[in-house]
Every structure is written in C-alpha cells, then in structure tokens.
C-alpha cells in the first residue's frame, strides 16, 4: 500500500532521516516507535509532503508520490493527523471537518462523510457548533482524527496521538485506533508511548537517530530484550 525506500530528509544542513525504508500493507496498522528526536515526526512530515525528501522513493499503491507537495499527497489518499492536533481553534468543530473535506472528491460526498465521522465520534456531533479550541484535549484529538477522515483516505498517518493527554484519555485515543481499523483503514502511527501502541498495531519499526534499528510484529517487539529494557522499562 504505502512504501518508502531509502528515504533521506532533513532541515537545511541538518539531516534527520538516513535511508529509511518501510512498508505498510493494506488494512494493516503499523507503529513507528523511538525516543524523542529520533526523526519520527520528520518521517510523518516527509510522507505527507510537508517536508521534501532529499533522496529515496515513496509510493502509494505502486504510484510514485515522492516530491509532491502536501496538497497533492492528500489527493492520493494519505491523510495526516499532525502532532499536537493543530485544529483551527476559532473555527467550529463542523468547520474544521469541512476544511478536512476541502479536496474535490471529498466535497462531493461531504454529507455522507460527515455522517460517518459523527457516527464514529458521537461526541463531535454534540459539539459541532463549538469553537474547536475550547474543547478538552481528548475531544480535540477526536476532531483532528475526524478532520483527517473527512477526505476518505486510504492511509491515515497519526503523529503522537496520545501526546499531552491524561492517561484515561490516552486509553480512549488508542481505542479509537481500533475503531478506525475496523472501518478498513490502513494506519501508520508514530508514538513514544511504546507499551500502549504495541497493543493496537500489527507490526512496528524502531527508529533511532534517523534510521530503522529494529522491526518486527508487535508480539516480537514486546518480547525483544532491547525494547523491554530501553522502552518498556522491564
């Protein structure tokens, strides 16, 4: 479905990713774990076209998407829920969702998608006329995910969905991932919260200092002694 081959990228003279290769199959949920500053967010930004890559190639369903700007990548079916949610705080919940349906194919079925998102997150329907910035962190995360789903993507990228949320809410957010998968979406999720993310993904990659260090199924990684020591504190 989504495939990256030896992708390198960075900011100016600072290189953040060194030849990262990664594959996500249709319907799969894949995690990217790693410490702060490993390049996880950079990886997400490269895939969604916010940051151009310097080397390597990137394809979705076999079509090359490397080098396309963000507003074209989303038309190929990749939606990105950015770090810290980044809602438009003074727009209402429904207006945020409307912006999510900006691309022509999404506009055509706005009503249908809106019903779908509201059925996934009934809370958003209750809050639809409220300014997005006035909601709780968990509700904002729902809205950010809903906004990305409005474009009816094939692949959903989620960058640290649990960041800055209370523990109880974090659990709810990971439950949402399950809900989204049940709808047949492919998910690539970046998280520092290793323990919980390994409960919801099929496979994961460990990213350290801009390179893939380890990969395996969630069960394999949970048993891996390096992961257990360094990330699970066991």
């Amino acid at each position: 479905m989504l495939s990256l081959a030896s992708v390198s990228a960075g900011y100016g003279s600072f290189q953040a990713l060194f030849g990262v290769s990664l594959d996500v199959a249709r319907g799969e949920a894949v995690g990217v774990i790693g410490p702060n500053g490993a390049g996880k967010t950079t990886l997400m930004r490269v895939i969604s076209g916010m940051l151009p890559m310097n080397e390597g190639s990137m394809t979705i369903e076999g079509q090359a998407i490397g080098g396309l700007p963000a507003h074209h990548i989303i038309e190929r079916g990749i939606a990105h829920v950015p770090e810290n949610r980044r809602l438009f705080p003074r727009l209402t919940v429904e207006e945020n969702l409307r912006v999510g349906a900006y691309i022509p194919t999404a506009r055509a079925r706005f009503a249908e998608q809106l019903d779908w998102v509201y059925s996934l997150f009934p809370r958003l329907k209750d809050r639809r006329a409220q300014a997005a910035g006035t909601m709780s962190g968990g509700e904002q995360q729902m809205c950010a995910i809903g906004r990305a789903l409005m474009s009816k993507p094939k692949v959903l990228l989620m960058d640290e969905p649990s960041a800055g949320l209370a523990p109880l809410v974090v659990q709810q957010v990971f439950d949402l991932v399950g809900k989204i998968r049940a709808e047949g979406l492919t998910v690539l999720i970046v998280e520092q919260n290793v323990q919980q993310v390994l409960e919801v993904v099929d496979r994961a990659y460990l990213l350290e200092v801009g390179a893939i260090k380890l990969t395996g199924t969630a069960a394999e990684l949970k048993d891996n002694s390096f992961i257990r020591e360094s990330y699970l504190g066991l």
Partner: protein
Amino acid sequence: MDIYLLEAIINGILLGGVLALLALGLNLIFGVVDVVWISYADIVMCGMYGIYFLYAQYNLPLPLACLIAILGSACLGVLVHKLIISPVLDSPPLNQLLATGGLLFFLQSFATLLFGTDFRNIGVRLPVLEFATMYVSFARLIAFGVALVGAFALYFFLKKTYTGTAIRAIAQDREIVGLMGIDQRRVYLVVSAIGGALAGLAACLLALQYDVHPFIGNTFGPVIFMICVLGGLGNMLGGFFASFIISLIIAIGGYYSSTELSYVFAFSFFIVLMFIRPRGLFTP
C-alpha cells in the same frame, strides 16, 4: 438633542460604511497573506480613475463602468500579489513594508505622469435628501448601503463556502493547511483578488462623493490603517466596528470644531488607545 449634531452623527455613520469596506479588505489580506498593503488606498485611486475614464470620458453606463472598475481592481490585486508580494513573502516584514510602500509612490507618480494633478469629477449629481430639517447626501446613503451589502456578502462567502472556510483556516494556522489539500498560493491569489475587488467597490462609492486625483489615497489611506490597528490587525470584525468609532469621532469632532481638527482628535484617540490596548481595541 441638537439637530445639527444628529446630522453630523448620521453622516459619520454613513462615512463609516465605506471605511469599513476598506478595513475589511486590508484586514483580510493581512490576516491571510500576513503582509500589510501600504498601497491599498492607491488601488482605490486606480479604481476611481477607471470609473472616471469609463463613465465621464467614454460614456459607458455607470453600472457597467463600476463593474469593470471592480473587476479591474481585482486583477490589479492579483498582479500586485504576483509581482510584488509573492517575491518577498519570506522576507523580513520591513522589506515587505518597503516593497508595498514603494508601490504607493510608484502608483501615485505614475498617475501624476499619466493624468496630471487635476482634480476630476465624474459629474454625477445626486440629490441631497432633507428630512426633519436634516440634510443627508444621497450619495453617502447609497455608499453606506452598498458597503454594508458588500460586507455581508464577504461574511457569507467566508462563512459558507469551502474556499471561505479555507481562508479563515489559513489565517489561524498557515503551516498545516496543505495537509487538508489547500494550496496556499492559490488561496493567496483569491484573497488578493477579493481585496482588490473590495477596493474597486469602495472606488465606485467614493467616486460619487469625491474628486479623483493622484493623491486621493493619502486622504483616507492613513485612516484605514489606523482603523485596522485599532480593531486589531487581521481582526475583521474589530476593524468593522473600529471604522464606525473613528468616523463618528471625525464627524462629531468636525461638528464641534473643524474638519482638520477632527482628524487630530481621531489620531489622538488612536495614540492614547495604543498605550492602553496595544494589540487593538477588540483583541481579547
């Protein structure tokens, strides 16, 4: 209440309508593109010359001349963005101010070169309405009504359409909008065209009341900036209300003293408020 004071207040409110239209245009561009068009009032000057030549020289019907002037101003807005703003988008704000400030001198000098410094009037004489011994200029009444219609049309566009919602979204987080499929550069062009069209509409309304000359922009350009800063730069609703505050100060001040002194009052009010509320009257 003194009937002449009431008349001054009514005229002040009517003047506020056109100023509000221009404040909306300037705030829209600033809020979205993040550049202050110092030369905004001179787009209005170009529009007024357009109407003068189309209507008074080439005898086109007035509504058609206005329509062409509005479309022409919209094109001028796009041109200004493409030629002047877009190359300096990533430059420091000072350079952007110098670029659009340079455009102001360019447009004024170019108009002087082409048309001379004569004051030209389109020669439409609208009646002055009298009721309850008060005199209200019909041209001002029309200007006020059309400006309000323009402002509400803009409001509905921003509120109800995808492009309008995208425009408001960009003003809140320009970095992220690409993820929703919004092409920033395209929206900048749309906004510049709308800003130009609003200046063109204001030109139509002002041409009914004022003579056009190359420096007409200087008479209300500074007032529009003051209004925008007073309302909070980029805050469209704030600018809208600030327009009426300033125009009322000018009208009432003019009633008690003279027109010249009334501008002194308005700017003094502005300076004092900048000490009290430096981020604008309506910025929380």
